[in-house]
């Protein structure tokens, strides 16, 4: 049949041996102008005919079949030259016989199944497979650290679920290539070298970062665990921006600039105010009062500085936000401020309400601590609390005014400064920009960090410092993130023991690499995983005889998606 099919639509590759026959066949078909019969449709379902055939040995049956076909065709009107062609008849009868025989012999079996290509498509790769994730085919995941213990398992799991996978490796040795499944796209690059990452993030939708420094040398740690995360997230954001520009729009993952303080004009609209929480007329006469100014210095910095010596006093810097046309803050998750200063903490206040009637506005506040020197601070909208406890939670859509307030209360002395006598009532804050972080349904970047338990005491501080710095870099990038901090890794099969998800550095147990990989892969499409950091380890099982509680645990199963319920109780933006 295939031969015939190709004769009708001749393909250049099919020239070779059978071409004379094809030509003849072709000519006859054209000459008579009658469509070729489909042998599939001629399978006989007459119960008498197969019974008879079943008793006869194979060769005879074939002949008989052929004869019968011929007989059957004779009286029909639409007979063609092709129908009586002995080669065609023989082939057709063979095909029919095979089909009938296959079906017949299948009856005599219990659990043997033939493996059919088209069925494979459905049963192995398609939705009938328990691993298949809807939409996986359209998702490209970049795995950084593809040869690490977790990375290898992550790649396998992704491949099983039908994702497109890119693997970032430093060298493409044969040894490395052997570890990776064949259809993984291997990209050579180094997270420490931003220039090499452009190709890696191209075409990616999500990133799983499981690389870690192989040594405890500070340089290495900084390069891989801190700078590496920053470089990759930056490259990914750059790529997103580029894509967005091609569409002549904004990347949904890009941050929204609320204010940029590059020129003197950019300070317009910002208003310095002062006030007190309570009126103490007598005290005001004797204390030093307060003062603040917001100015653009000769060195090109926008500086908000001053002092508050009044008890219960505060100074604040406020502006009515003017968002670009078409954007509203409800598509954003929080604020990120790039500021420098002397390490005071400030209060961010958002006024929300109908823009036309400011008297109905409600106030929401969140505390923001800064470091000495420049830093970027992330303040998620979810951390804003209403000033009046009866008010509903903040709706970012309604926000119209942003205020940064300084008050001398609750200031902590800066650690490790050379001037311990610094007066905590004075402050300085240099603004670089204020941006809004985009929101989204799913996580874009999964970072496998560590809890630090299980490391030798000497290394721990260094490693943790680099890891935490990397986590911070990711949180500020604007990408949806998930930070997984597993306990000490064990190389054993996953899915055996119940897992504990926790926030707050309290975990003590180990966890298998396979479970960590599973969490990473499950997090990809889980909205509860977005913008969360969590520790994870095995459930603590007391030794025999020392149990304090009865163990109520069950094995993770295919049916139970353990991740969403576990993560939904954890706090966001951590």
């Amino acid at each position, binding site marked *: *049949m*295939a*031969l015939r099919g190709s004769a009708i639509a001749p393909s250049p590759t099919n020239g070779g041996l059978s071409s004379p026959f094809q030509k003849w066949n072709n000519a006859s078909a054209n000459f008579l102008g009658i469509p070729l019969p489909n042998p599939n449709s001629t*399978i006989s*379902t007459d119960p008498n005919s197969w*019974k008879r055939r*079943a*008793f006869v*040995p*194979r060769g005879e049956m074939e002949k008989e079949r052929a004869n019968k076909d011929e007989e059957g065709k004779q009286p029909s009107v639409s007979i063609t030259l092709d129908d009586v062609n002995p080669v065609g008849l023989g*082939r057709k009868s063979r095909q029919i016989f*095979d089909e009938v025989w296959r*079906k*017949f*012999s*299948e*009856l*005599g*079996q*219990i*659990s*043997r*199944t*033939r*493996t059919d290509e*088209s*069925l494979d*498509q*459905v*049963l*192995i790769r*398609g*939705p*009938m*497979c328990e*691993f298949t994730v809807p939409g996986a085919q359209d998702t490209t995941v970049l795995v950084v650290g593809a040869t690490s213990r977790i990375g290898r*398992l992550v790649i*396998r*799991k992704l*491949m*099983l679920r039908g994702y497109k996978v890119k693997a970032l490796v430093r060298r493409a040795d044969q040894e490395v290539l052997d570890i990776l*499944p*064949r*259809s993984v796209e291997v990209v050579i690059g180094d997270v420490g070298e931003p220039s090499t990452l452009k190709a890696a993030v191209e075409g990616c939708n999500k990133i799983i970062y499981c690389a870690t420094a192989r040594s405890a040398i500070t340089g290495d740690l900084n390069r891989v665990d801190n700078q590496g995360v920053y470089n990759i997230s930056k490259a990914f954001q750059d790529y997103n921006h580029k894509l967005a520009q091609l569409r002549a729009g904004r990347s949904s993952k890009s941050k929204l600039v609320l204010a940029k303080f590059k020129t003197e004009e950019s300070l317009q609209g910002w208003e310095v105010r002062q006030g007190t929480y309570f009126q103490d007329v007598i005290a005001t006469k004797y204390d030093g009062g307060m003062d603040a100014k917001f100015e653009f210095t000769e060195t090109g910095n926008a500086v908000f500085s001053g002092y508050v010596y009044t008890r219960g006093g505060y100074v604040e810097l406020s502006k009515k936000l003017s968002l670009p046309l078409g954007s509203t803050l409800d598509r954003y998750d929080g604020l990120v401020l790039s500021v420098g200063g002397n390490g005071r903490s400030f209060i961010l206040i958002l006024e929300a309400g109908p823009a036309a009637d400011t008297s109905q506005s409600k106030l929401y506040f969140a505390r923001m601590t800064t470091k000495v020197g420049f830093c970027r601070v992330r303040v998620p909208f979810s951390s804003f609390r209403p000033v009046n406890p009866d008010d509903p939670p903040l709706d970012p859509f309604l926000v119209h005014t942003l205020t940064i307030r300084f008050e001398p209360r609750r200031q902590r002395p800066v650690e490790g400064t050379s001037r311990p006598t610094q007066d905590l009532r004075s402050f300085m804050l240099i603004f670089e920009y204020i941006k809004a972080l985009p929101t989204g349904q799913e996580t874009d970047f999964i970072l496998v960090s560590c809890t630090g338990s299980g490391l030798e005491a000497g290394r721990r501080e260094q490693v943790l410092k680099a890891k935490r710095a990397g986590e911070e870099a990711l949180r500020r990038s604007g990408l949806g993130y998930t930070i997984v901090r597993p306990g000490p890794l064990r*190389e*054993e*099969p*996953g*899915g055996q023991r119940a897992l504990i998800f926790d926030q707050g550095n309290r975990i003590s147990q180990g966890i*298998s*690499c*396979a*479970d960590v*990989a*599973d969490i990473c892969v499950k997090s990809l499409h889980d909205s509860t995983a977005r913008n969360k950091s969590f520790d994870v380890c095995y459930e603590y099982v007391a030794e025999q005889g020392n149990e304090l509680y009865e163990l109520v645990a*069950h*094995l993770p*199963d*295919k*049916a139970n998606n353990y991740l969403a319920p576990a993560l939904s109780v954890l706090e966001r933006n951590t």
Partner: protein
Amino acid sequence: MASRCTTFPPPFFTPSRQRSRQCEVSLSWTRSLSGAHESPLSSSHALHFTNRANYSQVKHRSRYMPSAIRCSAQTAAATNLGPGTPVRSTSILVVGATGTLGRQVVRRALDEGYDVRCLVRPRPAPADFLRDWGATVVNADLSKPETIPATLVGVHTVIDCATGRPEEPIRTVDWEGKIALIQCAKAMGIQKYVFYSIHNCDQHPEVPLMEIKHCTEKFLQDSGLTYIIIRLCGFMQGLIGQYAVPILEEKSVWGTDAPTRIAYMDTQDIARLTFIALRNEKINNKLMTFSGPRAWTTQEVITLCERLAGQDANVTTVPVSVLRLTRQLTRFFQWTNDVADRLAFSEVLSSDTVFSVPMGETYNQLGVDAKDIVTLEKYLQDYFTNILKKLKDLKAQSKQTDIFF
């Protein structure tokens, strides 16, 4: 040739009439392989060769002899090492990885974090999907014992889901190959051997495949390996090709009127339960039976498919007696013996055997919830709702079927 054609092949467990002759043959590789631990192999071993004269494989056997000697030398070296270098418990070898069950086992293993090596036969179109999932593929053939030992190096657990292809003689892979594999595994210190068998295989010695499975079970139990034997009933995946697809495509569906009931099970569930059992030390050296939640007759399955597909099937019902008769006839001729073997289950089908066991205790033992096991209704419903459109698209794309000359 004449004698072969007329002899009615005796069942396996015939008293060993030709034993003296067979012993010479069995000297070849089996004895040398098991040399280090003589023990239990001999008892069940004789049955292997009782039928020898009836089959033309004596010729082949002699061909394997030289290489078999090489094979025994290797294993001797390995056994001399004593306990040997430790092997990671996550390294497993799946035999028969391209099969219906084997591929699900491979997937499950990979997903649970095992390092999976797949033993597949060298073939022109390599099983790329296994490599794509991240498994390592090694080429070997159970019917060529000399290819086996190299694949077992560094393996902790062997999972054996192999069975011969329908078109080849049943004994080559399922009996001789398995014996070789088990002996190799023993000689090379494999720490666990999982073997899939067929439910009720001890009750139907007249069916060659079932008898072979039963004998292999015995052989494995006597081999001294730590084993798990899992008896299976039927695969839901098989029903798709047999009934669901033809019904959707409005082709004729062939069924029997057999009263036999089979508790079909999803191979994905089988794979999942296997690994739970594998990690449970209490299940070592046990024989378990996995069966689906409910036993179905062929007619019931067809009715279910019709209901779910929303269209009537063009059913051709073949009486079991016809199947049996065909089998008896084909057994007369040596060259149709394979055909007879393929039809052998008709003997089982004609009895009203129920291929099902109560699973409650097994679930408890494994700590599995019964409601996580897929039922046939659910499985087929998933198939019909999910695949209906997709499959039609696929079929439309590729009309090309086999080429017949």
